[in-house]
């Protein structure tokens, strides 16, 4: 791989309250190359949203670091502002992201004014820039949308306005946190197709944070699966989804409702709270491979409960943080 656009190394983000420390992100290595679409997959409580917020400079890492385009993430207000133009965020709920009393034009123009995009462009006016980004996001003809308010739009149109607001700043990276999970089924494909088109036309790099493996299959080049603050499996999307190595990824894939041809592995309980990360492999208390004796048969059952997994090395093509998948290293 050529130099990655975003390089995450040994990242940890902790939150503490009343002496209790929650390790939301607890050792993550991940590189994201230019023009790549990477899906960060995990359930609630896996730390995926904290990781995304840290990438935007909204949370400070406790340890480790993030490099963007070869230099560490800025910390001063002025530099952060410049950085945030280049790395934009799209959230799950477009209704919550838009000001209900602002027209579509105002919503899109706000970022253009803050970042003085008109001065940076070659002779385009503010209206040109707003119209251009609405068109790029599939709202055509743009003039028809200028004076509309969010409540006059459908859910899919609102999400397009949010994406237009982000694209108006000509970012290099788009971080999309569950971009379609609040949208209707028929709209979902259209928004995903838009993300693919923005990558093809403008060389955009996309990090999609999601719990939806179907979405990852639809658009992602690479997948990183996160559990309780760490990546447990990583690799090219086709490889991870057609032949998952980690028992957690296998279970996640088996409960996707479309997959009724495989026996569902429904895990008991829920992701533990990040203030009490289990010792040994952090997945071992819920691991189906330990329950059904596969770990025992491989002679690693003791190791699972005692020896912590090293941080997943994502520099290799595909990898899984499981003693079962890497018997030699246990």
């Amino acid at each position, binding site marked *: 791989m050529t130099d990655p656009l975003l390089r995450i190394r040994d990242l940890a983000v902790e939150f503490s309250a009343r002496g209790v420390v929650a390790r939301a992100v607890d050792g993550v290595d991940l590189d994201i190359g230019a023009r790549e679409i990477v899906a960060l997959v995990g359930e609630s409580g896996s730390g995926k949203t904290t990781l995304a917020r840290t990438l935007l400079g909204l949370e400070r890492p406790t340890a480790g670091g993030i490099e963007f385009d070869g230099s560490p993430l800025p910390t001063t207000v002025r530099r952060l502002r410049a950085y945030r133009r280049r790395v934009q965020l799209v959230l799950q709920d477009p209704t919550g992201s838009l000001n209900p009393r602002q027209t579509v034009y105002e919503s899109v123009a706000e970022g253009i004014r803050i970042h003085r995009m008109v001065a940076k462009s070659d002779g385009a006016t503010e209206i040109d820039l707003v119209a251009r980004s609405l068109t790029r996001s599939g709202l055509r003809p743009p003039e028809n949308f200028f004076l509309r308010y969010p409540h006059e739009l459908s859910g899919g149109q609102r999400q397009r306005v949010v994406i237009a607001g982000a694209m108006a700043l000509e970012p290099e990276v788009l971080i999309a946190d569950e971009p379609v999970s609040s949208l209707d089924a028929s709209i979902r494909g259209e928004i995903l197709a838009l993300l693919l088109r923005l990558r093809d036309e403008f060389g955009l790099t996309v990090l999609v944070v999601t719990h939806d493996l179907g979405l990852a299959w639809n658009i992602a080049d690479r997948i990183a699966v996160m559990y309780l603050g760490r990546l447990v499996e990583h690799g090219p999307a086709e490889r991870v989804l057609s032949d998952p190595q980690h028992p957690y990824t296998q279970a996640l894939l088996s409960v996707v409702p*479309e997959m009724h041809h495989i026996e569902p592995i429904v895990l008991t309980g829920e992701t533990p709270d990040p203030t009490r990360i289990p010792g040994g492999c952090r997945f071992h208390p819920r691991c189906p491979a330990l329950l059904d004796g596969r770990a025992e048969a491989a002679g690693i059952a003791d190791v699972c409960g005692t020896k912590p997994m090293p941080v997943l090395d994502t520099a290799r093509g595909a990898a899984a943080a499981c003693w079962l998948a890497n018997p030699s290293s246990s």
Partner: protein
Amino acid sequence: MSGLLEIENLEVIYRTAGGEIPAVRGVDLTVDSGESVGLAGESGCGKTSVASTILRLQPSNATIRGSVRVGGKDVQTLGWSGLRALRWGEAAMVFQGALHSLNPVQRVGDQIAEPILLHDPSAQGTVKSRIGELLEQVGLPAARARAYPHQLSGGQRQRVMIAMALACRPELIVADEPTTALDVMVQAQVLDVLSGLVGELSLGLLMISHDLSVLGATCTRVAVMYAGRIVEEGPATDVFEHPLHPYTGALSAAFPRVGDRSARYAPSGLPGDPPDPQELPSGCTFHPRCPVAREDCADHDPPVRLAGPGRPVACVLVEEGALQP
């Protein structure tokens, strides 16, 4: 034969300052005991309006035509005492947002007790053990009765909502998007609980969702709604895997099968948005978004025809008896 829930030619019309909104335009649907039926469709298609009429929970500006019968009784003409006995006792509802449906300052056990004691004030002595039993039925330890909603996770709260719905031993459960806000693993757990209950208690379940894949995996039969009408109905796996109506086809393709190469870098969706019920397109209401629409689709609203036994479809391209060998 009379079903547990029988909806016949149901119409729901909302009177608003901007005129009348026909949200439901002639829906027929039945659910029998021990059967789980899915109602699929996008926001605004009228599926929640249908659900609200089953417990007569529709807003006061709604006009209802047609009939809704639960256990043979017409819900819309029932007297107040009959209606009280119906709600919780014969039919109960599980709503989407469990966090907003539970009282944040009351222990969940006390909230489950409320409908039980309302229906049978003499149950005071046995209510505690009944709550424990209900919680265990949905896979929660009986001790969780002492928890407040904020101490539970999203999946646990949804289980509490299901336990509450079961409190008065209803025969019919109406679940409106019961897993929409949940993660896949928790969704699988909650769906397991629901389908287990249908089998064990021989309940009738009407499950409403925009996610056809969830209904396909949980229900025995699925009906697909578009713009206030059912456009296709049939056995769940048939509808999901071999859809006949182009709209069902689009809904089904929206959730790709992981591993299906044709879906890689090709997310599938439908252009356009669901129609505004006040300005319904002429002819077939789906024609402006239909990938295979013919010219005459704008003129004639296609009647519902039986493509096969138990397989009604409303599309000109699907002939009567099309599924017969």
